C-alpha cells in the first residue's frame, strides 16, 4: 500500500467510503466543499448514494432515513450548517441510529467567516441539539488521523447506535499530507443490524420512534441512553500525551491548535523548559482520568484554543481545583503561530 498525498476534506470522504459508508448527503458550505465534491464522484463510483440536498436540514434527515435501513450514512458541514442539523442529530440520538457527521469549523457566530476556528466545541460536546443525550466527538490532529478516526467513528456509531461527530477545522480540512488508508471494508461483511427496518416481511411490523408520551417510559429511555453514554465514556476515551513525563506544565489543546502547540513545546524544550502536551482526541468523552493523573504531579495547565475559551471549562471540571488552569485563545479565524504560543507559555510558566 502506498501513501497518498491528500487533503483533509478528501480524506474524510475517501476514508468513509473505505469504511463501508454507502450514503452521503450534504449541502455546500465553505471550508468543506471539497468533501461533498469528492463524494459526488467517488460515492457513486462505489455504488453508493450521493445527493446534494436542498439544505443541511434535508441532508441530516436523509441520513436518518438511510441509517434506519442499516446503511452506513454520513453528512458533513461547517458551523452554521451544523446548527441547522441539531434537531436531526437529536432525533438520531433518540432513535438510537448510527450516523457520522463531519464538522469543519469556521469563524462564528452567525455568518462568521470561512477561516479555521474552534468555536463550536460547546455545540459539539454540550448536545447542540435538544434533549438528554450526548454525542461522541472525535477530533483528528492530522490527515492520517482523519483517515484512521473516520473508521473509528463509523465503528462507534454502529456499536453503540449513536450519531458521532468528527470535529475538524478549516485548516484540517484544507491541508494536504501523506496518508496511508486502512484496508477497505465491504459493507456486506459488517455485522448484521437486527434493529434495522427493511420491511416487515413475514414478521411483525416495527417502528422507530423518538416520541415517548408516557413520562415514566421516557424517564426509563433517558436513563437507558445515559447508561449507554457511561459505557462509551469507559471504553472509547482517546488522547495523546507528548513530552509529558517530566513536564512541569501541561498544554491542553486539540486538532490544529495541538499541532501548533507541539511546535511551541519543541521550541521551549530546546530552551530547557519542561513543558508537555495533552491532546484530547475524543472531546466527548473527555479524557478526565489522564488529566487527574497528570495533576498529581503537575500543578499548572494551560489550555490553548482557537476560540475565546470552551474546552478550558472541561479541563477545569476534570481537575476540580487540583491544579491551576490558564487559558490562551485566538478566535475568529486567526491561526496562531508556534512563536506566539511559546511566548505565552513561557510567560505563564514564569509567573
Amino acid at each position, binding site marked *: 500500500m502506498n501513501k497518498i498525498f491528500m487533503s483533509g476534506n478528501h480524506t474524510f470522504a475517501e476514508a468513509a467510503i473505505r469504511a463501508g459508508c*454507502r*450514503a452521503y*448527503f450534504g449541502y455546500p458550505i465553505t471550508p468543506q466543499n471539497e468533501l461533498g465534491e469528492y463524494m459526488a464522484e467517488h460515492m457513486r463510483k462505489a455504488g453508493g*448514494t450521493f*445527493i446534494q*440536498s*436542498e*439544505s443541511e*436540514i*434535508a*441532508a441530516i*434527515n*436523509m*441520513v*436518518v*432515513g*438511510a*441509517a*434506519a*435501513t442499516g*446503511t452506513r*450514512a454520513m453528512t458533513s458541514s461547517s458551523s452554521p450548517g451544523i446548527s441547522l442539523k441539531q*434537531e*436531526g442529530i437529536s*432525533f438520531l440520538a433518540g*432513535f438510537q441510529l448510527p450516523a457520522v457527521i463531519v464538522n469543519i469549523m469556521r469563524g462564528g457566530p452567525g455568518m462568521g467567516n470561512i477561516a479555521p476556528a474552534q468555536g463550536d466545541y460547546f455545540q459539539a460536546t454540550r448536545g447542540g441539539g435538544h434533549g438528554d443525550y450526548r454525542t461522541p466527538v472525535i477530533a483528528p490532529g492530522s490527515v492520517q488521523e482523519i483517515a484512521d478516526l473516520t473508521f473509528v467513528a463509523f465503528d462507534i456509531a454502529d456499536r453503540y447506535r449513536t450519531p458521532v461527530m468528527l470535529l475538524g477545522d478549516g485548516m484540517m480540512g484544507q491541508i494536504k499530507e501523506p496518508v496511508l488508508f486502512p484496508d477497505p471494508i465491504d459493507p456486506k461483511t459488517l455485522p448484521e443490524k437486527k434493529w434495522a*427496518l*427493511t*420491511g*416487515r*416481511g*413475514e414478521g*411483525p*411490523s*416495527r*417502528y*422507530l*420512534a*423518538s*416520541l415517548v408520551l408516557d413520562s415514566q417510559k421516557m424517564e426509563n429511555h433517558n436513563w437507558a441512553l445515559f447508561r449507554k453514554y457511561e459505557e462509551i465514556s469507559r471504553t472509547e476515551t482517546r488522547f495523546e500525551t507528548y513530552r509529558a513525563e517530566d513536564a512541569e506544565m501541561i498544554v491542553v489543546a486539540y486538532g490544529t491548535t495541538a499541532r501548533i502547540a507541539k511546535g511551541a513545546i519543541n521550541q521551549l524544550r530546546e530552551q530547557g523548559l519542561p513543558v508537555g502536551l495533552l491532546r484530547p482526541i475524543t472531546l466527548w468523552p473527555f479524557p478526565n482520568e489522564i488529566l487527574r493523573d497528570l495533576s498529581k504531579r503537575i500543578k499548572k495547565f494551560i489550555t490553548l484554543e482557537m476560540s475565546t475559551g470552551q474546552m478550558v471549562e472541561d479541563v477545569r471540571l476534570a481537575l476540580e481545583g487540583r491544579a491551576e488552569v490558564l487559558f490562551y485563545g485566538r478566535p475568529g479565524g486567526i491561526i496562531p503561530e508556534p512563536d506566539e504560543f511559546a511566548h505565552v507559555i513561557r510567560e505563564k510558566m514564569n509567573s
Partner: protein
Amino acid sequence: MELLNPWPKYHKKEVSSHYCPGCGHGTVHRIVAEVLEEMDLGKRAFCVNPAGCAVLAYDYLDVDMIESSHGRGAAVATGIKRVRPDLFVFTYQGDGDLSAIGTAETIHSANRGEHISVIFINNAVYGMTGGQMAPTTLVRQRTTTTPNGRNPEFDGYTLHITDMIANLPGVVYAERVAATTPAAIRKTKKAIRTAFQTQVDELGYSIVEVLSACPTNWKLSPVESIEWIHTVMEKEFPLGVLTDKREKKV
C-alpha cells in the same frame, strides 16, 4: 356467508383510536391498509409518519414505520428509498408538515423525482396543536391564530402546494381527492392505488392530496364538516388529477 369487508391485514386490530370523531385520518388509514394488502406491498412497505395528529400512525398501520422530525418526511423517505430502492416507501403528512415547515423537502424531493408516494392530508388547519392557521387555511377562515378570519394582508393567501409541484417534470402523478362520501372515499382509494402503482412501476414521484375533516378545530359536527368540504373547501381546492405523466415515462 362471506364477510365482504374484513379487517385489513395491515391495520392493527387491538387498538383504540385517539383520533376525534369524524376525523379523516381513520378513513384514510384504512384505505392505505387496504391498498397495501390488495397490491401485496405490506411486506416491503416503509412508511414515514409526520409530526401532527398522525404522529401515532404507527399505532394503527401495521407496516414498518419511522417517525420524522416535523416537515422532513420527504427527506427521510428519500434517504430510505435511495439506499433501498426495493422497498415500497411512502410518506403520510399533514398540511403543516408538508407545506409549511416541510416546503423545501416537499418541493425538492418532487423536483428530484424521488420514487416515493406522498399522502397529503389537507384539513386546512393545524389539528394536533389545537387549531392554528395552516398554509392551506382558507381566506376568512377562523382559526386560533386568525381569530378574526384569515386576512391576506397579514396572513397571506391559501397555499396550493400540490398545484405548485404538479408541473415539475419529476412529478409523475398528482391527484386531489376528498375523504367524505362513500363515492368520494372510493375515488380516494383509487387515487392512492394509482399513486402506489406509479412507484411499483418505477415511474417516479406521486402525490395524493386528501381533503379531510377536522370537526374539532373547525368547530363543526362531523356531518357539517363533510358539508363544509363539499361546499367550501372543494371550491378552493378542486378535486381531480393535477398531473399524469405516466405514459410519457414508460
